[in-house]
């Protein structure tokens, strides 16, 4: 029997019970739609994290305090106060270190910021001028923190564009205005250029102040929360990591690298970590979506089985008139594929629409890969075949007399 005729018959049979057909399709729509939407969202967040990290620079090394071991007890990661201004200075001046061209000691913490009636809790980063070079931050208007401000312990601040907008509203240039950080007056001397992205890794949300001001005036600390290093090139990253590592070990009077109370990570490490985190997240979401797809598939199998029972006489007649096993199987498989394929098409459309809505709300990039759409279609057809097979086989194995006698 010709395929076109089988498909025509399939549509006719499915048209008989429109509500039932519609509900079966709905199951697949929800399954495919959620797979498409969730996978796209996962991909989008991965992309945005990656582009953010790459915007920071690929020859960047970050030294952060590790856990401190005292008397055999290991403290919490990052909780240590082991990095000092002197460490940063040593890296800058040591003769053994040949691969680092810029050193940016940093202290960051959160504080309450007030400008007029606007009030926000922001990430305050104490920096030296090198920060701008190392972390690839440029100033949109005004100027960045200079060494004069650092040595004078000046109360000046450079705002990230997001914070500036939060505090002063859109389109207002706050350079020259005064803000209160932790109750102290700071003069705004510049705004950085937007780097995009969102969340805690985006410098758009930061307020930069001189390192000395942050340590002494705001947070009362004498250590650093991180030291950012710019290597002379991407190719010497490992060497740079080793050089800095040995210097810091000897400065901290540690002989065994396993006892290190600091961590040196490159952007690649960070990228890998975050990618694996978002990857896990995407996998989890897809897993949930896949379960709903499975449930949809079982729905298809259910109505196909019902249909086989209802059409026992018809199947018997068709076999009596010369339909072979293969033809009957094809007939039922085509019906279930029509169901899942239709569900797949609607699901892809709704999934993409849902993802588009998400990007509008979230501000992330709207990218739908062709692969995910093709995958969704093939999965939906595959589900049709998989869950249509058993009912189709049941139908094909009916004996023509049994089927004809069936009331």
């Amino acid at each position: 029997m010709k395929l076109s005729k089988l498909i025509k018959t399939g549509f006719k049979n499915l048209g008989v019970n429109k509500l039932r057909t519609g509900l079966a399709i709905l199951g697949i729509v929800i399954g495919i739609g959620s797979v498409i939407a969730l996978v796209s969202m996962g991909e989008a967040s991965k992309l945005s994290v990656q582009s953010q990290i790459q915007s920071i620079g690929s020859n960047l090394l970050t030294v952060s305090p590790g856990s401190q071991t005292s008397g055999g007890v290991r403290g919490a990661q990052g909780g240590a106060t082991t990095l000092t201004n002197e460490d940063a200075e040593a890296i800058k001046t040591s003769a053994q270190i040949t691969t680092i061209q810029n050193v940016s000691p940093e202290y960051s913490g959160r504080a309450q910021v007030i400008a007029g009636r606007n009030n926000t809790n922001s990430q305050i980063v104490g920096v030296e001028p090198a920060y701008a070079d190392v972390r690839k931050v440029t100033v949109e208007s005004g100027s960045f923190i200079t060494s004069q401000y650092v040595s004078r312990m000046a109360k000046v601040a450079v705002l990230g564009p997001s914070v500036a907008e939060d505090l002063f509203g859109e389109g207002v240039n706050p350079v020259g205005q005064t803000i209160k950080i932790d109750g102290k007056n700071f003069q705004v001397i510049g705004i950085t250029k937007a780097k995009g992205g969102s969340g805690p890794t985006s410098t758009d949300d930061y307020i930069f102040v001189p390192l000395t001001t942050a340590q002494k005036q705001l947070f009362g600390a004498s250590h650093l929360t991180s030291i950012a290093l710019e290597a002379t090139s991407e190719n010497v990253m490992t060497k740079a990591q080793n050089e800095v590592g040995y210097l810091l070990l000897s400065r901290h009077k540690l002989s065994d690298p396993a006892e290190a109370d600091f961590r040196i990570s490159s952007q690649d490490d960070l990228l890998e970590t975050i990618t694996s985190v978002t990857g896990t997240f995407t996998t989890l979401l897809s897993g949930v979506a896949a379960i709903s797809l499975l449930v949809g598939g079982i729905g298809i199998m259910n109505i196909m089985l019902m249909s086989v029972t209802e059409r026992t006489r018809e199947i018997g007649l068709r076999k009596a008139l010369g339909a072979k096993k293969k033809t009957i199987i094809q007939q039922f498989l085509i019906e279930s594929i029509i169901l899942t394929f239709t569900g797949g098409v609607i699901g892809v459309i709704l999934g993409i629409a849902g993802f588009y809505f998400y990007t509008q709300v979230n501000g992330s990039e709207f990218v739908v890969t062709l692969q995910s759409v093709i995958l969704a279609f093939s999965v939906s057809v595959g589900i049709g075949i998989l869950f249509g097979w058993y009912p189709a086989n049941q139908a094909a194995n009916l004996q023509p007399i049994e089927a004809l006698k069936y009331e």
Partner: protein
Amino acid sequence: MEAAVLVVDLLVDFKNSVMAKTIIDVDHLSKIYNTGDIEVKALSDVSIKIDEGEFVAIMGSSGSGKSTLMHILGALDKPTSGSYHLDGHNVESLTDDELAEIRNKKIGFVFQAFNLLSRTSAIDNVKLPMDYAGYPDLEQEKRAKESLTMVGLADRMDHPPNKLSGGQQQRVAIARALVMNPALILADEPTGNIASTQAEEIMSIFQKLNDDGHTIVMITHEEDIAEHAQRIIHLFDGKVKEDGNGHTKSKATTKT
């Protein structure tokens, strides 16, 4: 065209009179059903030969085994023992798919309950066996129209069965049985679900088909319907009780 038909008719007549070909050859056939512990012997040692061009009625009360015999003759079921040759093919040695092909090409079924696809037009119903045989669309159209015209439904080809009377539905079923030009037309209580006035019409169509050379085997329990056949086989308790001439009354009035 007319001449060709005439020649064919003459040839058929010639063949019938001189060397009638055996269409159905049932030899010592038995069918035993196992329903749990009880063995039911539906047919025991039945031997029947039916030649090409014959019109045979198989009669019997319910439980006589006539339905079982019809299923076996229709290649819908296989005998427990004995042999059955249909138009030279040994049926019991065939696989399910080969049986399907035999049913498709050699047998035209007419059922008591018509068994038409209800939401499908008369002509598409008639095309169904040709679909399974893989005939091209144009030929399907042509043959289906000829077939429906033959049973007097030329003006109702696009009607679905539920818009037709019982007699008309059965005529669609006959058109479907005819369309593959089968060696055997097998009718199972063809008038059982039809008003008696229309029953006569159906029988006259069978009569005409038989006059045209078709071999017809009809299962019935109604005496007056069986009378239309040339030969009547009576079954009783799964055995052939009587095998004799029909037409003790009269042929149905042929009207076309």
